């Protein structure tokens, strides 16, 4: 990756570990264990037995939940006992995490805007902001492209295929045009 850092903004060089591989293994295995137990418990309540005419509704999910729990426990123990150097490697470095968050957080905000104001407005804004912020494009290029993307999505789905996409829950900017 070192040779290909053309657009790499400052910060990527920060190689401090945010969390070690081992710690992350433990956290995830723990979460999976909880997940497995929840599944098993819910299925048990549903009826996890083997009736006269074959398994009941909760039979498979119950054992699936149990297997998830058991294999997560094994992974958890392996991670706890693992003292090798590998285990102390960074799961993610601080610089990397910053870059990941630079995509992830705006994407989450994007989904929130979709929920409130519909997919078209959100997409135009998201495209433009991403291009200006991370790509350092001129603002008019970004805005133009954002609108173009939204408009072509609109034509393709709403007009052409007649697939209605999500309209805002709070306010639907397209209400004026009757969509």
């Amino acid at each position, binding site marked *: 990756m070192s040779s*290909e*850092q*053309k*657009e*790499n903004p400052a910060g*990527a060089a920060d190689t401090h570990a945010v969390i070690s591989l081992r710690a*992350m293994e433990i956290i*995830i295995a723990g979460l*999976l264990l909880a997940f*497995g137990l929840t*599944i098993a418990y*819910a*299925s048990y309540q*549903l009826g996890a037995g083997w*009736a*006269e*005419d*074959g*398994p009941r*509704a909760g039979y*498979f*999910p119950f054992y*699936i939940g149990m*297997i*998830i729990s058991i*294999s*997560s426990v*094994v*992974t958890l123990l*392996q991670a706890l006992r693992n003292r090798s150097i590998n285990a102390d490697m960074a*799961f*993610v470095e601080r610089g*990397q995490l910053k*870059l*990941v968050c*630079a*995509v*992830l957080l705006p*994407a989450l905000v*994007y*989904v929130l805007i979709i929920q409130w104001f519909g*997919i078209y407005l959100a*997409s135009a804004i*998201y*495209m433009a902001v*991403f*291009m200006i912020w*991370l*790509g*350092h494009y001129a603002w008019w290029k970004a805005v133009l*492209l954002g609108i173009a*993307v939204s408009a072509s*999505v609109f034509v393709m*789905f709403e007009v052409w*295929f*007649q*697939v209605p*996409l*999500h309209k805002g*829950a709070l306010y639907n900017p397209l209400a004026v045009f009757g969509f």
Partner: protein
Amino acid sequence: MEEINALFHGFSVAMTPFNLMLMFTGVTLGVVIGVLPGLGGANGIAILLPLTFTMPPTSAIIMLSCIYWGALFGGAITSILFNIPGEPWSVATTFDGYPMAQQGRAGEALTAAFTSSFIGAFVAVVMITFLAPLVAKFALKFGPPEFFSVYFLTFCSFIGMGKGSPWKTLTAMMLGFSLAAVGMDTVTGQLRLTFGFSELMRGFDFLVAVIGLFGIGEILLSMEEGLSFQGSNARIDFKIVVQTWKKLPKYWMTSVRSCLVGCWMGITPGGATPASFMSYGIAKRFSPDGAKFGTGQIEGVIAPETAAHAAGTSALLPMLSLGIPGSPTAAVLLGGLLIWGLQPGPLLFVEKKEFVWGLIASMYLGNLAGLIIVLTCVPLFAAILRIPFSIVAPLIIVICAIGAFTVHNAMLDIWFMMFFGVVGYVFKKLDYPMAPMVLALVLGDRAEDSFRQSMLISQGNLSVFFTNGLVGTIMTLGLIMLFWPLVNKLR
């Protein structure tokens, strides 16, 4: 010889300028639909069905089936370029297709995918032309125990794929199964694992999970490496098509195997998705380069694509001759037949010769048209990777969000997609394998349904899976596949 005559008559029906125009429009539309994740072949055809209401039935089915071919071709494009499978059956294509693109071999992967798709479809159409009545009878032999054995075989030929911790493979696979179990249980009609949320009633759609795990997860991973996609400096040249073609004959054995798997799964209605997974698994087992699968082997693209297309095409045979849909897309086409006033079923071949042979002829022509269209566009598709990351990345996220939404028209699915994106990122870094999880999610509930239907038939007796030659053979094959790695070690 009767078939040849009928086929030539079919060509004369299909070759009118109007029908040829519909064919090209259909394929192009299909490619667009296949590329957009979420919209998919079945939805695309359902959406366009009413528009064909005013056309003559033969033209209508030519157009709609060409959309289907186009969607089959189109599904491969985003899988290879961005690791986002546009259709369930192109998931297996990502395993080697995306690594190839990362190594700057996107053109090669695309050419291999399209060409083997065409070969798969061609073999299937030839089979439909000459063996239709015989093959249709075979499909009737499949009851619940046989279906279960097919799913069992798919799992077995795929298991042991990962190199990492077996416990993590197990966890991942079971996660897939548990997600597949959410929603309504077909056999008892009870709601399972919905925890009282009505939004969970529809269950987790496979596409939403895959768009997140593969698509969004991959973008997050590429971010770590700085703001760029690998492989963006690929050489883009039409010569790549010819160069790839020279390599392909070497893998004829893989193609033959995949065609067989595909045709079989299409007819029985197992469908294109299990076909592509099974074919990939088998190719990995039998290829001398099997160990290198997953790192950008061209064979790993050929196998699933050939099988998926062969299955997708032969799925139309049981629809025409029996009136059973071999795939969701065929189910929608079936509805179309009824709307145009045609009755699918054994008599269709007798009563509506013109229609059936026109359709079969259009399968030859439509696939050829599709191949020409997508191959000429290979340099164009590969050039997409040259678009700067800061334009392509948000565009992909926008398309993913739309895709996740259109699967069920549900806003919550977009949130699920983002969640699966984060899960995909973390799992990839911790070496939890994604392929078994996705396979379990796709086939989990179908396998469970057919298992429990079999149990109802036999009143809880497991020997039902070995009661006749067909189901017994498939189960045994599955068991051999399961223990193959052990056998290999003993030798």
